[in-house]
Structure formats: structure tokens, C-alpha cells
């Protein structure tokens, strides 16, 4: 008898968890903001996947026009959809290949931020006490460190690698996620099904990962999607300041190249406007997705 009542009690919260995930996946079909954001992400993802096919030239190849001259600062046209740089490189190809760098940094940083934030938030909220106090002091410290200067310092001292930029972003961005997850865990912890699981003798680990974690998963996803935009913006800034990898084409690298090559004074808008617009699109997509999910996940927030 005891066994029979055990099962539904223990599985019920899992169902709640799955429902939350289901709502999450259905969001793009229910909210126009989320729909637009998701389509933009999907579009850039496709471009990144097929970048080699789409890009007409090697992004760093120095091109010549049919008459044998260096194709420097060519205007947009059939040959070069967005023209060429002052060294005769195809801007459109750079833009397409640059999508990869942006998505790699954005997604990697988002996953790391969401992961650290979620684990810290879960542990902090669930166990409370001194563990909570220590973890939250760490969060305070991370929030007291200036964000961009810190990432510059990391990239400047440890070397201009993409992984260092991701490290810098991850080290400072997790507390926002952790704080929100923690407060959510504090309320979930008090819910009846957690009590029920405890009565049935479930271990702390089981309660934490099977009963509590699925319920806060949508929140981690939400904060992860916000982090994508932040990470891409930060990576672009770092590359613009000259602390990014110099052998890897990214939108920030293109902007730095354009700035350093006096594209501004020549009025080469075809060079420095497109990379900026791409960054705007990706970051806006992140805003739209998080806005859409917020309204679906927390209907009471809707003003």
C-alpha cells in the first residue's frame, strides 16, 4: 500500500517540471515577441552552419578585380555584395563567417552563465545557512567588479583568446541568474510536493534535482537567453578594443578593422554599418525572447 501511494507523489512534481519545459518550448508559437526573436536566432544559426557555402570568398583573401588591380575599397555591387575593405577583402564574406564567432561566444557564455547561476542558486536556496551566506557574498563581490574592464583585463593579461573572453563574461555574469534562481527555489522548497517527497524519504539530492530543479529550469533558460546578447556585445567590444583573437573574423574584429583603417573618414558605410546591424539584430532577438518568455512564464508580470 505504501509503495502504491509512493509513486504518484514522487512523480507528480516531475510532471509539473515537464509542463514548465513544455510551456517553454511552446512559447515562440504563442507570443509574437518570442516568435520574432526565435526566428532571428534560427536565421543566424542557419547562416553560421552554412557559412562556407554562403560566403563567396575566403574572408581574409586579398582579391583582385578582372583587370588585375587590387580590388581595394570596392563599392557594393554584383561582384561584392557589400564591397571590399581597403585591403581588397570581401566584406559580405567576413560578415557571414563572423556569424560563427558571434554564436560560439554567445551560446558558450550563455550555457556557462546559466549553468553556474543555476547550480549556485539551487544550492544556495535549497540548503540555506552558511552555504547560502558564503555563495551570496561571492555574488556580491562579482557584482562589485566593473564588467567590461574586468573582461578587458582578463583578455589583456591571459591572452587574446575567445575562451578568455568567455571566462571573463562567465565569472561576472552568473550572480544575476543565481539570485533569481535562489529566490525561486526558496518558494518552490516550501511547496507541498517537496514536503511530500521528503515524507516518502527522498534524499536531499533527489529532491533537489528531481523535484526542485525542473521547476526552475525555465528561469535558467530565460537568463541564458539574456546572456547570449550580453556575451555577443561584450565579445564585440573586446575585439573592437583590440584584445580579441586577430586570426578569427568576428563582427567586432570587422568594426575594429574598419575603425583602424579610417573607413569612417572615407564614409565607407558599407563596411562598418552591416556588422553593427547584425549585432543589434542578435541582441534584440535575445531581448524579445526573454520578454516573450517572461510574459508566458510569469503572467502576473504583464503590465
Amino acid at each position, binding site marked *: 500500500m505504501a509503495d502504491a501511494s509512493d509513486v504518484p507523489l514522487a512523480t507528480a512534481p516531475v510532471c509539473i517540471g515537464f509542463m514548465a519545459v513544455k510551456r517553454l518550448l511552446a512559447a515562440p508559437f504563442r507570443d509574437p515577441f518570442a516568435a520574432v526573436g526565435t526566428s532571428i536566432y534560427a536565421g543566424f544559426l542557419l547562416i553560421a552552419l552554412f557559412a562556407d557555402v554562403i560566403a563567396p570568398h575566403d574572408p581574409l583573401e586579398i582579391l583582385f578585380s578582372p583587370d588585375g588591380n587590387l580590388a581595394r575599397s570596392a563599392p557594393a555591387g554584383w561582384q561584392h555584395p557589400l564591397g571590399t575593405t581597403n585591403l581588397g577583402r570581401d566584406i559580405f564574406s567576413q560578415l557571414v563567417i563572423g556569424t560563427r564567432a558571434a554564436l560560439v561566444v554567445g551560446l558558450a557564455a550563455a550555457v556557462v552563465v546559466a549553468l553556474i547561476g543555476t547550480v549556485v542558486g539551487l544550492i544556495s536556496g535549497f540548503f540555506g545557512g552558511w552555504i547560502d551566506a558564503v555563495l551570496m557574498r561571492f555574488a556580491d563581490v562579482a557584482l562589485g567588479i566593473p564588467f567590461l574592464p574586468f573582461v578587458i583585463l582578463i583578455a589583456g593579461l591571459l591572452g587574446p583568446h575567445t575562451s578568455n573572453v568567455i571566462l571573463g563574461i562567465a565569472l561576472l555574469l552568473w550572480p544575476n541568474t543565481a539570485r533569481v534562481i535562489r529566490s525561486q527555489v526558496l518558494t518552490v522548497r516550501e511547496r507541498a510536493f517537496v514536503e511530500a517527497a521528503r515524507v516518502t524519504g527522498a534524499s536531499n539530492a533527489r529532491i533537489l534535482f528531481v523535484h526542485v530543479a525542473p521547476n526552475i529550469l525555465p528561469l535558467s533558460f530565460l537568463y541564458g537567453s539574456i546572456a547570449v546578447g550580453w556575451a555577443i556585445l561584450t565579445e564585440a567590444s573586446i575585439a573592437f578594443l583590440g584584445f580579441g583573437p586577430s586570426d578569427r573574423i568576428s563582427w567586432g574584429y570587422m*568594426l575594429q578593422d574598419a575603425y583602424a583603417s579610417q573607413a569612417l573618414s572615407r564614409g565607407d558605410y558599407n563596411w562598418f554599418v552591416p556588422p553593427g546591424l547584425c549585432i543589434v539584430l542578435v541582441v534584440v532577438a535575445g*531581448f524579445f525572447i526573454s520578454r516573450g518568455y517572461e510574459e508566458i512564464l510569469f503572467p502576473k508580470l504583464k503590465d
Partner: protein
Amino acid sequence: MRLILTRLAQMLFVLWVVATLLFYMFRLMPGDPTVAYIDSTFTEDQVQALRRTFGLDRPLYEQYLIYLRNLGIGEFGESFHHRRPVLDVLADVVPNTIILTLSGLLVAYAFGAVVGAWLAWKRGTWVEALMIPTVLTLRAAPEFWLGMVLLAVFGFKLGWFPSGGANSPGATFASETARIISGDFLWHLVLPAATLALYLQGLPLLLMRSNMLDVMGEDFITMARMKGLSNWSIVMRHGARNALLPVVTAFALGFGASVGGNVVVETVFSWPGLGKLLVTSIAASDYPVAQGAFFLITVVLVTMNLIADLLYSLLDPRVSHGRRL
């Protein structure tokens, strides 16, 4: 009082952690800090003497204690590159950064507060449908890219504003104050400040809008309506005044965050400020300056966070400073 002391202790803790982090990070670098001074003609004795003057011959923990004491009294050492005390190098650029940040923020927050309140009033109309995505888009734009576009259009194409720097080359002034209040300085300030304002207006605007929407649903607004007050009076005297509180604290937070975030704008416009100094000193391996600039930016950020916190409880006594969940 207890609140202030707790916050102050937290702030010192953060600063201590940052200082320690800086100490170890700069010692992770290949070679030691004297490398920049030493050239191949130095004898072994000279190198040792130099290491002694920098205290590098002592054990690490002693170096660390000396370092902490020096930070406490504002002694950041001497710049490798400028061959001047770091404090002097910092003092040269700090006014530029403060003025740039303040003017950008003031424009952004004045604009944001007014337009945000107006948008709350226009809720559900096409104005809102058009403005909200525009504001979000501006917020999503990389700050340096906004600056580049403004610079290309208004600096180079139209030639209305100078292309960079804080003063025209060769211009001399009687004093630092004369330099800052000169028309030349203001003329140079317009584009970077406008970039900053464009980038920052989103936060106060959206904050003001949602506060207004909250406040307008409160009982005292209904009361004001029942008293038959005019719309203007309700919105401005009863609504906006209350909705403005969080915007004021956001201003303090924004100032702290901007001083560090200005890095890219200062670089685009070659604005001789703290952020640009940080970038150039890291690029030139001028570690004492990089360390000092980073520490100063942190101090500003942490102090402004503290002020925002205190301001919040001062302006709105309903906020209790117990456990915030």
C-alpha cells in the same frame, strides 16, 4: 546607522577581494614588473638594486601586505610608460571621464524620465507599439558602433564636430578649470556624450514607464481623480513624483557602471579618460597604471552602489533593509 556600517563593511570586503585579485593577476604575468625598466646593458647588481627598490626581493606575503597598505593610502606606484606617479596620471584623466559620464547620463535620464512617463500615458496606442521596439533596438546596439556611426556622419561627413580628443591640438589654457569650461571642450564633448546618452536612455525610459503604470493604479491616484484634479496635475504631481524614485537610484547605479563602461566610447572618440587610459595601459603593459585605473573604476562602482542603496531607503522609507529575497 547599522545599515550604513554593514554596507560599508561589505564594500570594503569587495574592494579587498578586488585588490587581492589584482595583486595575483599582475603577478601571473611572465617576467616581473621590473622587466619594463631593465635593458640589456644593466649589470646583475643594478638589476638586484632595482628589484630591491620595488620590494621584489621580499617574500610574496610581505609584498602583498605592502601592496595593500599602499593601496589604502592611494599610492599606486610609478607608471612604466609615463615615468610619473600613477596618481598624477589618473588625476589628469579623471575630470574628463566624470564630465563625459555626467553629461551623458543627465541627458539620458532627463529624456528617459519624460518620454517614459509620456509612453505610460500613451499605453496601448501606436506610439507605444513604435517606441518600445525602437528603444530596445537602441539598447541592443553596441555603444562603440553607435559612436562610430555618429562620428562618421556628424564628425566626418557633415564636419559639425571634431573627430576626437577633448581639446583641439595645440590649444592652451590658463588652468584645468578654464580648459573644462571652454567652448572648445564642450564642442568636443557633444558627440561622445550624445553616444552615451543614446545608449543609456533605454533603462530610465523603460523603468519610468513601468513605474508610472504601477503608480497610476494606486489608490491615491484614484483619490486624486475623485477630487477632480486635472490630468496634468495627476500625472505630474501625483504620478511622476512617485515614479521617479527608482529612476533616481538607477542614476547612481548608472554612474558607477558607466565610468567603467565608458571604455569603448572613450576609445572611439580618443577621449582622454579613465577607460581609454585602462585600455592603452594594458596594451602597453604599463601595469601600475592599469592596476590603478582598474582599482579606481572599482572604487567608483562600489561607492555608487552603496549610495544608490542608501538613497533608496532614504527616499522611500517603506523599503526595509532586512533580508532581501
